[in-house]
């Protein structure tokens, strides 16, 4: 009993538990529909490429996982969310494809500009967006949601302008590779892994993680303790912009085109959701990067499972909403307190009877 309690108290309990739950549903479904019970976990090689539902989850979840890294830091440092990431992804894609194809050209099979320049410019503009958000939040003391609302509206619109309101196709193999495969492994998985690894290493081996948490817990106290709170918040937003840029490049390369209207649509909600699912408080302060990443893949697993169960993509949000509400209600303070009181009452009553 006490071991169970210890387990439920662990920080990673909730995200891991929900992940396992989703997988269990998959196993039950597979048994019920007469497939092999561990269909979800089978990974096979088809045409020299890894294939399977698990790989699919990892692959499709890459963008959200990358975004979750930046979002976790932003939430931790500024107690607010960056709702512009989806738009910034679209802007990055638009910028990158516009440069690679040339303005006004909608379909190319040769670069108008070297690949690194296009990607570099795309990521750079994403960082600039982060800088803008960060400046408003850190130096002008504007609530994060309002500050990022500006780019939420403008980012996609500027992306559309850059692409002249058209879908720009870049049909070059080396560009498509970013969203396709390296050897047998999907490239997005590798990119997401690299981003997560770098973030984890930096946070582990430098004091940055501690600084961010301290600013998130108390901005004023951290400033008095000698930290430049504003600079740290600014840095978090720039990192978030960078992550959005990388995710934008991946999403663009996947469809080798800048479909500015659809790239990263509602992605900010998934990113925020993964942070919340990961057991992080949206009120800032302590963060748990591993939780967010697991949260991101859990969301993708839910989506993939729903598709496998035959739920249409338009109807899937209903289930997503129910899952979200269940998870946040379990985490809610008053609910926790209620159960604590009840178990205490039970203990007292049990004591009296004995």
């Amino acid at each position, binding site marked *: 009993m006490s071991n169970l309690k210890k387990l439920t108290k662990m920080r990673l309990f909730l995200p891991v538990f929900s992940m396992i739950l989703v997988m269990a549903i998959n196993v039950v479904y597979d048994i019920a529909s007469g497939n092999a019970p561990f269909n979800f976990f089978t990974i096979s090689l088809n045409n020299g490429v890894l294939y399977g539902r698990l790989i699919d989850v990892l692959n499709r979840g890459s963008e959200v996982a990358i975004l979750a890294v930046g979002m976790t830091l932003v939430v931790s440092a500024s107690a607010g969310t960056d709702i512009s990431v989806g738009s910034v992804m679209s802007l990055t894609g638009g910028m990158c494809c516009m440069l690679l194809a040339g303005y006004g050209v909608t379909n190319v099979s040769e670069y108008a500009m070297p690949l690194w320049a296009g990607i570099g410019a795309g990521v750079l503009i994403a960082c600039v967006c982060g800088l803008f958000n960060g400046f408003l939040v850190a130096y002008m003391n504007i609530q994060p949601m309002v500050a990022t609302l500006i780019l939420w509206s403008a980012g*996609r619109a500027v992306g559309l302008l850059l692409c002249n309101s058209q879908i720009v196709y870049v049909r070059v193999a080396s560009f498509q590779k970013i969203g396709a495969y390296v050897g047998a492994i999907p490239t997005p998985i590798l990119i997401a892994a690299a981003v997560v690894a770098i973030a984890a290493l930096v946070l582990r081996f430098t004091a940055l993680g501690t600084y961010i948490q301290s600013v998130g817990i108390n901005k004023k106290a951290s400033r008095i303790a000698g930290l430049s709170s504003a600079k740290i918040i600014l840095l978090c937003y720039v990192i978030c912009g960078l992550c959005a840029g990388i995710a934008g490049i991946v999403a663009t390369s996947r469809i080798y085109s800048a479909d500015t209207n659809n790239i990263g649509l509602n992605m900010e909600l998934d990113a925020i959701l993964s942070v919340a699912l990961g057991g992080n408080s949206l009120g800032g302060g302590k963060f748990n990067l591993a939780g967010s990443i697991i949260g991101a893949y859990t969301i993708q697993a839910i989506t993939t499972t729903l598709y496998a169960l035959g739920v249409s993509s338009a109807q899937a949000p209903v289930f997503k909403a129910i899952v979200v509400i269940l998870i946040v209600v379990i985490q809610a303070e008053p609910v926790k307190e209620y159960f604590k009181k009840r178990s205490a009452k039970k203990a007292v009553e049990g004591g009296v009877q004995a």
Partner: protein
Amino acid sequence: MKKAKLNNNNVLLLITIVLFAAMYLAGCIVYAGKGFTRLQTFLNILIGNAGLISVTCGMTCVMLTGGIDISVGSLVALDCMMMAVGVEKMGMGSPVLMVFILIVGVVFGAVQGFCIAYLEIQPFIVTMAGMFFARGMTAVLSTQQISITSDALFTKLAGTKIEFPFGGYVNTKGILQVPYIRVTVVVALLVVLATFFLLNYTRFGRSIYAVGGNQQSAALMGLDVKKTQLKTYILCSFLTSIGGICFCLNTMNGTVGQATGLEMSAISSAVIGGTLLTGGVGNVFGSLFGVLINGTISSLVQTNGKLISSWANIVTAILLCFFILLQAVFAKVKERNK
């Protein structure tokens, strides 16, 4: 004494109104040849945004308590779909459906409000779940676009023109064109007035401002903070449902993709109108002008004809940025004066 009355909040409202007037005048001068000076152009902005006006009123109330409701766009889509499915697939009458839609709105708001006020979950997360839920339920009802054609009363309501006795002009074919508004505009303006009276002249309205200003002091004054929050979210969803019906009267159909991003239009309109997201400061009339400014921008871009529609978003974003910075400056000045 008079100077004290013109505080920061009134200045923000004044700037919003002046900006709207300036923008509209500029439009009149630049696009005079394209009929921008006609009264009908202005009325069309009202007609096109009637639903949004009602939604923004609800959003303003929620923002005044320091919360946010991003489920409104999806709820509007759900309302339209309920109306469409009810009329076309189930053969129900539109009055019954309207009452049903309003009840759904109240229940929807009550659930969200309960989670926010009594379970103390962040408004953003709760209403995001509400947003997913409503949008998904829309798809569960139907994934196709359903046009509303078979309900006589509804079609009549949508087609009714309330004509003005003045301001008409004779068009190129020699027919007198009389400026008109739709029923939805009347509803929307009534909602604005009702919300204004509710906020300023009732106990509940004053509690909203008090809770938004400072929850702790409101609680110490003996106000029931949680109940006020719950009621505000119910009010917001109720007004959104009214807005949803207006929206439906405008579009006359139900689709899954309807009213996407409406929540952000409502939030940006409220912010442009001088409502602070931190709560406690704001005014419904400001929000009305916020919607009108947004409408004028789209109208200007449309009248130009050569600009692609994303320019409207960019200009709105720039305006939003301007207003947010202005609010920040005001906040700083206020702090210094303390």
